[in-house]
């Protein structure tokens, strides 16, 4: 039977209908709570937490601006919030770079093993996910503290006399974040390398390219999608990270996640917390849009 194009269209229409239960769940579960957050950010703080049903843009004003506590006439940019925001973005960027630099050789190592062994290595990469994040973070603390594993070992070997203070520093936070998010970089990189045609590398050598030249002009362009996907996967959770900076950083300097938590907890300013959460969401979406653009450009180039 020759298929009538109209009929096919109709069938597709029905298929689309089959997705409605999933769509309803998505709309209710994803946009519903989001709408509540947006709504809350335009209300006034309630007594002892919660919100009062009075429209107010004060929360949004306070995300970026501040009235001096001791001189209310004096309105300036809210440096405290911007400092926290900047720290979150900067720390996430550093985490992403560290993961990329360490993740690339790791993924390369796995991709160049014989096929049978690769599964084992990949499996090993996923092992940390078996344990709760909080427990892994406390384990790192156990390694880094003054009388922790590293300092004890170094002192025992006579390398140092005094323990090196590592806990509660930016180094500790970076180490913890890089460790936690490393698999999210390695896996997409590996996926990109797995699809790579290694004959191109050989062709490069045949044409007298140096090792560096092959890496720069052949391998890196080919695994670029993996880098982009990995960077997004690392950057987005890093920017909202809460536990790792709190436990390893000693809680002296807030990240965006801690600032939001403060508003819903001891600060008792839910609207401000909601507005800050929206800011976090906007940063995340911006990062995602940039990623999609980069991927599209990549595909256009390949097609064209």
């Amino acid at each position, binding site marked *: 039977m020759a298929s009538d194009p109209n009929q096919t269209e109709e069938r597709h229409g029905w298929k689309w209908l089959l997705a409605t239960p999933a769509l309803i769940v998505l709309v209710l579960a994803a946009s519903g709570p989001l709408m509540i957050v947006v709504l809350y950010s335009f209300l006034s703080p309630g007594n*002892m937490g919660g919100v009062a049903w009075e429209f107010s843009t004060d929360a949004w004003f306070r995300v970026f601006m501040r009235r001096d*506590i*001791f001189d209310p006439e004096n309105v300036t940019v809210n440096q405290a919030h911007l400092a926290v925001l900047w720290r979150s973005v900067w720390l996430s960027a550093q985490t992403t770079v560290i993961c990329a630099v360490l993740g690339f050789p790791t993924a390369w190592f796995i991709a160049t093993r014989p096929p049978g062994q690769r599964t084992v290595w990949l499996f090993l990469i996923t092992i940390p996910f078996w344990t709760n994040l909080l427990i892994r973070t406390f384990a790192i603390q156990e390694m880094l503290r*003054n009388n922790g594993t590293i300092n004890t070992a170094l002192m025992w070997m006579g390398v140092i006399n005094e323990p090196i203070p590592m806990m509660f520093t930016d180094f500790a936070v970076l180490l913890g974040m890089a460790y936690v998010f490393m698999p999210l970089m390695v896996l997409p990189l590996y996926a990109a390398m797995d699809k790579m045609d290694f004959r191109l590398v050989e062709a490069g050598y045949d044409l007298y390219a140096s090792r560096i030249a092959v890496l720069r002009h052949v391998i890196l362009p080919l695994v670029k999608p993996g880098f982009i996907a990995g960077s997004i996967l690392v950057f987005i959770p890093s920017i909202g990270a809460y536990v790792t900076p709190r436990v390893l950083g*000693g809680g002296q300097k807030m990240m965006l996640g801690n600032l939001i938590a*403060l508003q*819903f907890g001891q*600060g*008792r300013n839910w609207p401000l917390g909601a507005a800050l959460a929206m800011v976090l969401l906007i940063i995340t979406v911006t990062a995602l849009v940039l990623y999609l653009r980069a991927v599209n450009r990549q595909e256009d180039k390949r097609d064209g």
Partner: protein
Amino acid sequence: MKRTIALGTAALLASTSLASAEGVVNLYNWGNYTSPEMLEKFTAETGITVNVTDFDSNDTALARVRQGGHGFDIVVPTHSYLETWINEGLLMPLDKSIVVNHGNIAPEWTDVPFDPGREYSVPWQWGTTGITVDTAVYDGNINTADIVFNPPEELKGKINVVPEMSDVMAIAIYHAGGESCTEDMEVMRKVRDTLVAAKPHWKAMDYSTVENFASGDFSAGIGWNGATMRARFQRDTVAYGYPETGFPVWMDNAAVLADAQNPENAMKFINFILEPENAAMLSNFARYANGVAESDEFLSEDMQGAPELTIPEDLVSAGKFSEACPQAVNDLQSQIWTELLQ
């Protein structure tokens, strides 16, 4: 076939109604705060099973119960939040025909400002927020907040301040000569300047004080009396100081929720924890003092006469019930706090 299912359902229904006859009570409490041993004893005596759900802050507990549909019978809020709980009608007055041990509440904890005459709540545990010092590192006067705000040379870089805004703010305000929840801007300016100037000398603002004082990673800080006592058990040079300018006193209180499903069982539980022996079991587990008269003799040996649990007589008047500040004041404090942690 159908009949089997019907029979099975009937049996199931019967067994559930049997279970509810035996009874349960749902306790909503701070994490790691309820002695499992005491719960076993309660079940053995009454046949009532206790289900415990944890919360991690007063704000979380209040927000969840306000939403309704929580299914809890008993909650354990801190005194500073208790008035809000009572005023919003979230609690049920105690049924004194069941809570016959009401008279066991220690006299000083009976007529408290946050629940006059104890109509709604009974003491669970109480404590103070003060100064923890490793006397092996610093052997000067420890009854002063200057240890944290103007630290002596040997303590610089070894200080930890628990990230509990209201407690730290209260100690700083008392230190600057103000009253809890003050709106005096001169005092608040002094508080801000003191905190901002002191912070570079701090090492951390962390909750994990016991292990870090025991290991020597921290040598001084703002912390709680029970945690300090636990650190001292592991490192005997750790001592607890009460700032003479003023320090917060807090008490967590058990109360029955207005919409409790098992109010009678809940009242029985409240009555049970007022027995001196049972109150002591709570203390032996959570390591704070309870507010029940004559429970001291049941305390474990290492807690009897512990300096962390008894405020020295000349410093009792410096202890002040911390308050939940009005929104405007809380906002002011949290702005200073954000500035401090930026």
